[in-house]
């Protein structure tokens, strides 16, 4: 037992020293998907762009840190944070009570709601989660939307590594509907040629925040301050309008 405890302490020491070292080296490692437009994705020039990318860069700039982006599937993204693969996740992570048990969140930098997505030619009116009963609904594995679908009960939930996979399956008819971020659907309506459209919005606004390890309290305080400064100096509004044509910092 004693031995085990020593090992645990050694492990803890390693973890804390790793998180402290981040700021010393001057690099903020940011976990994100890279396959989730318009939040994080690669553009035609193979550059990582998106709303969350801009937010992450702006925060890092306020902290005087360089950025290093680590791209990973959503399904492994929270595990990667616990395993010290990066310092923070900036990838539309919704603040939930369940997640707060194991990870810490910055002050929210956006609010969004879930929206049902259907094929363009589908006239079925899916307005609420209840209307999806018995349907095949695609969703990101381990996402908050997956939890919403499962909690609703009676829905045939099909999980995928990322949004691009289930939106494609929806488009080709292997799914009846999908559930995702209202902001993403709005972006799609404008700029994608995938034959899908938004249906009912689940009116339950969700706070979106930067996720980090609970032990990283110092970094959390700094990020919170940086987010407040970005909102005060107008940088945030500029980023938000660039991607959504509106300020998404309010509910």
């Amino acid at each position, binding site marked *: 037992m004693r031995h085990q405890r020593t090992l645990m302490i050694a492990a803890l020491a390693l973890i804390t020293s790793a998180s402290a070292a981040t700021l010393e080296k001057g690099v903020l490692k940011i976990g994100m998907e890279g*396959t989730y437009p318009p939040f994080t994705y690669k553009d035609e020039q193979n550059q990582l762009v998106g709303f969350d990318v801009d937010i992450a860069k702006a925060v890092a700039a306020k902290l005087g840190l360089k950025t290093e982006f680590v791209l990973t599937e959503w399904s492994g993204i929270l595990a990667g944070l616990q395993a010290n693969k990066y310092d923070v996740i900036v990838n539309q992570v919704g603040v939930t009570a369940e997640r707060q048990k194991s990870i810490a969140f910055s002050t929210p930098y956006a609010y969004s709601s879930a929206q049902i997505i259907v094929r363009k030619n589908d006239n079925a009116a899916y307005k609420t989660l209840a209307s999806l009963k018995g349907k095949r609904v695609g969703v990101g594995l381990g996402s908050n939307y997956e939890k919403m679908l499962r909690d609703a009960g009676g829905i045939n939930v099909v999980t995928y590594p990322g949004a691009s996979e289930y939106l494609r399956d929806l488009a080709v008819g292997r799914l009846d509907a999908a559930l995702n971020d209202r902001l993403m659907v709005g972006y799609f309506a404008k700029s994608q040629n*995938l034959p899908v459209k938004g249906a009912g919005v689940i009116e339950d606004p969700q706070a979106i925040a930067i996720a980090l390890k609970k032990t990283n309290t110092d970094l959390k305080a700094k990020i919170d301050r940086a987010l407040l400064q970005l909102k005060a100096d107008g940088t945030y509004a500029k980023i938000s309008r660039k991607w959504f044509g509106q300020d998404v910092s309010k509910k």
Partner: protein
Amino acid sequence: MNITQSMIDALPVLLTGARITVLYAVGAMLLGLPLAFLVALGRSAPWPPVRWLLDLYVSFIRGTPLLVQIFVLYYGLPGLGVTLDPVTSGVAALSLNVAAYMSVTIRASLDAVGRGQREAARSLGLSSSQTMRFVVLPQALRIGLPSLMNSLIGLIKDTSLVSVITVTELLRSAQLVIARTFEPFGPYLAAALIYWLISSLLGLVQSRLERRLHRPGPA
């Protein structure tokens, strides 16, 4: 958009990913082959605990999916305080995996060299290490080469699994393109062709090596 066009558009990104794929495969080969050899020899070591440990290792690797092994190394180990970066854990998982399979081939090849060959060599006055180097190994290599090369070609394809641990290799590169274009066929097909090309090149090396080893004359 037609498929050829979307394949061509995806190509620059895919080639960057292909470089990473080759890097992982080469890294795993360079570490895996010597490791496989050590394991093969160790499994007939005169110390039972060493043999048991190595038998356990080979059995575990052969009895679990590579994908799970990658997850254990990358996401699991940090629970014990050991945090490996994606390159280290990816190469480690691939080498440990390919080494286990190759060690079995190597052992079988060594065993396939008849006992008489060793006895003859010893009676001619060669030491046991000389017997190994000059008599057993050259013959074992000839026997084991085709299946060793098959393991290496398999390794190229297995690298696609490291896409799950934040590595932007060939498969993940294709997914990044698809996430933007929602045009899956072109990028996936192009990625498949690149894997095929790399494997075929290795296959070519294999047949060259085999022909060379079967040439009569001093080894």
